[in-house]
């Protein structure tokens, strides 16, 4: 799995490539919390277009990101979820909890 950050205006976009599972979800958690808590980014956008699979530990990292963003008053947005990612959020009854868009343009729109 690879994760990299880029900035477009007020939004920090984290591009993730690969699978998010027990082997690497701590990296996702660390990257999210660094942007939200340490760098105080006002909008953190997670690009999941190139993520094929997310397990429950990956979902837990997303929940931590969401909680941190609520505490710091920032926005945490997901986009590019495939069917597998949507299903794991749905089965965990979390799909409606997250701000989710289909593509990057929608995710960074003011």
């Amino acid at each position, binding site marked *: 799995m690879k994760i990299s950050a880029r900035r477009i205006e007020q939004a920090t976009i984290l591009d993730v490539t690969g*699978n998010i*599972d*027990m*082997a690497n979800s701590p990296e996702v958690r660390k990257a999210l919390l660094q942007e939200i808590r340490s760098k105080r980014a006002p909008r953190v956008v997670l690009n999941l277009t190139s993520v094929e*699979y997310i*397990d*429950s*530990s990956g*979902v*837990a*990292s997303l*929940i*931590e990101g*969401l*909680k941190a963003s609520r505490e710091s008053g920032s926005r945490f947005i997901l986009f590019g979820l495939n*069917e*597998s990612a949507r*299903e*794991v959020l*749905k*089965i*965990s*009854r*979390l799909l409606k*909890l997250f701000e989710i868009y289909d593509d990057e343009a929608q995710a960074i729109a003011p």
Partner: protein
Amino acid sequence: MAAKHPREKKKPPKTSRAFLLKLKLRSHPTFLCVVRGALEPLMESLGFSGEENRAIIRGVDEAVSNIMRHSYRDCPDKPIDVYCNRLERRANGRSQQGVEILLYDCGPAVDTTKIQARPLDEIRPGGLGLHIIRGSMDAVEYTRAGRLNRLRLVKYVGVSKGVGAHPEEKPQ
């Protein structure tokens, strides 16, 4: 039409199984993707739909993750065996195809009275694995087999209740 005798019981479905695959792996999380990669084409060949295939992979992946995390407490070099059997269930003149996945580990016996999925209305990280396993498979059974933990996961073709359903655990 002859009336059924009051003592005549409905015959349970006959289930036959055929061995398909065995994987022996260590309890290191990097092997999770190996299990997923092996199962996906196999389940496709058994006639599972894309949604069912993803459900099986999700259920097995979470179960193996649970073994690594809870049974072996993140110790990365313990043995895990994964067996896949093709199932065929015959009932009322109909045949139903499925798969049985058996996971074995050498960890301490699981106290099933302490296994509880957390309420889903609590928004907090962790504790989702069991929900995901139950919601993805048609049957989930834990047994202690000698010194081994055995988890049996079953999925039948075309029985999917849809994502998010939490079917009751039902012995086959």
